[in-house]
């Protein structure tokens, strides 16, 4: 199995998002923090005239963020199981490229592939909302 993925950097981790789910890559949106929100929810932003929840991908992935550095890019993407998808913003440090990943090469269930000798974590967008 293979497919186009958007590679992003979150802290020191490179993550791959399925390109089909990604709608747009924009500069960090202006956030409005929500009181009492969970740690993964950074706040609400406005995108194409609609409110958009912006999640902290690093926290969702359990990856170590870079202290003090605010995410520079927001990836607007669909998450959740098919038929119940939700458009959210994922705050990342950097959007790297769109690349074709050979998922067969990855160990099943490991959620990680090597791209140019470098480990890239595959993000399962369908289950991302559950964890949140």
């Amino acid at each position, binding site marked *: 199995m293979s497919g*186009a993925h*958007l590679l992003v950097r979150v802290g020191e981790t490179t993550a791959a998002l399925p*390109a*089909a789910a*990604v*709608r*747009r*890559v*924009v*500069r960090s949106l202006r956030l409005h923090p929500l009181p009492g929100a969970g740690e993964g929810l950074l706040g609400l932003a406005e995108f194409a005239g609609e409110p958009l929840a912006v999640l902290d991908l690093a926290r969702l992935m359990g990856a170590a963020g870079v202290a003090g550095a605010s995410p520079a*890019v927001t990836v607007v993407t669909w998450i959740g199981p098919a038929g119940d998808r939700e458009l959210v913003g994922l705050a990342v440090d950097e*959007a790297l*490229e*769109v690349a074709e990943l050979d998922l067969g090469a990855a160990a099943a269930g490991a959620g990680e592939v090597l791209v140019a000798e470098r480990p890239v974590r595959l993000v399962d967008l369908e289950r991302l909302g559950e964890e949140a």
Partner: protein
Amino acid sequence: MATSVERTTSGNTGGSAPGAPVGPAVLALLIAWATGAWLVGGAAREAALPAATWILHGTALAAAVALALALARSARRASAAAAAARRAALGAAFRELGAGDLTRASAAGRGLPDELGPVLERALEGIGGRVERLQESSLAVAGAAEGVDRTASSLAAGAAQQAAAAGEVTAAMEELARTAAEIAEHAESQNRMVAQAEADGAAGAEAVGEAVAGIGAVEARIGDVTSRADTLGSRSREIFRVLELISDIAQETHLLSLNAALEAAAAGDRGRRFAVVAGEVRVLAERVRDSVATVRSQVEEFASAIRATVVATEEGGKEVTRVLDEARAASAALEALRGALGESSGAARQISSVTRQQTAASEEVVSTLRELHQVVERMSRDLTQLSGTAGRLRDVGLDLQLLAQAFRLDSPRSLKRMVDAWSARLDGADAGEMLGELVGATRFVEAGYLVDAGGRLVAIRLGEAFAASAAATAEELRRLDLRERPWYRAAVDAGRAVVIPPERSLLSGEQVLTVALPRRGADGELSGVVGFDVNLRHWTEIGA
């Protein structure tokens, strides 16, 4: 009281010896006056005495002529008896006249007849008057001579002092001239050194001026560099802004390329070529980003270098300013030094010039002083000569006085009358006491004395001014027989008052002129001689 040992005064009264009758001498004088051949000594005619002398000459001549006429007239008129009496009276009158005693000659002539008596009387009065005037003139001459002598002596002493002073001043001026010459030499040497220093100073000032100008140029360059560095700094900031903009654009382009790639992926196979373009755009954007990073780092280095340069330049500028200030201060000091040197040089030149002038002036003064010295010396010699001439004039005065004193006159100045009066006062009085009184009444009498017929000193009294020097000698005289003294013999021989020419006094050792008179008792026998000595230092006070 005098000895006959020495006779120092020249030009005596017609050369009459002591004791010889005075009459013939007087007659000889009258003749001498008439012929104008009277010689008292060369100095007498040279001296300014013509008035008195010629008056005397004329009067004597007139008197002699009148007398001769009277005699001729009386001889024709006289009878034989009367003629004898007249001759006797005339003889007596002429004897007295010959002895110089005008008083007695007048008395003897009173017995003459009417015509002869008054003529004789007038002649005698005429002679007496002239003799008195001669006496007074001699005093005046002597007084004037003394005055001239005193003045000349004082002037001579002053001139000698002046000559000595002129000599000293000359020496001092010569020394001054030498010193001035040395000063001028030193001043010129100093002037040369100052000129050299001035030239050195000028070169130094020029060098400093050049250095100042060079440093000024460096300062200007530094200012320029600082300004350019500032400009570069501001340009760097602009570059950073541009880089920021480029970086933003690159990031935006990157995001656009990613979104394009996503769109291409969504398009499936149809979007594959587009995806390639989007990938290339992304790579381009990344390269731009990397380049911007490189450029940024280089510009930062460059800006940092510029900042360092600016700081270094500013510090260098401060240093240059400090050096420039110091150089300017040095230049000013050098300029002041040159000014001082110039002044010093001017002063040295002035000193040199002035001292040269002073040297010339000093030499002139020295020359003038030498002339003055010679003049003063000549004057001193002349004054000494004048003093000698005045002394001779005084001697001439004394000669005239002695000549006048040959006559016995009814005048307070007549010494013969004075000794007659003394003799009369001694009659019946205490000799010592009376002599003391008589001597004390005069200032010119050195000693008055009375000697008896045996030549022994009966009494002697000294004048107040001479008592101290002559008292001891006076006592020794008591042991001597004074009959052999010239004055004693002359008085006895003449039988009347005599005046002995100047000789050295036994008492004081000074020149004196002795007046002596024989004294006779009631029986007509010689009882002694009364006399007094007139000290020649005081003879001009006779009769005063």
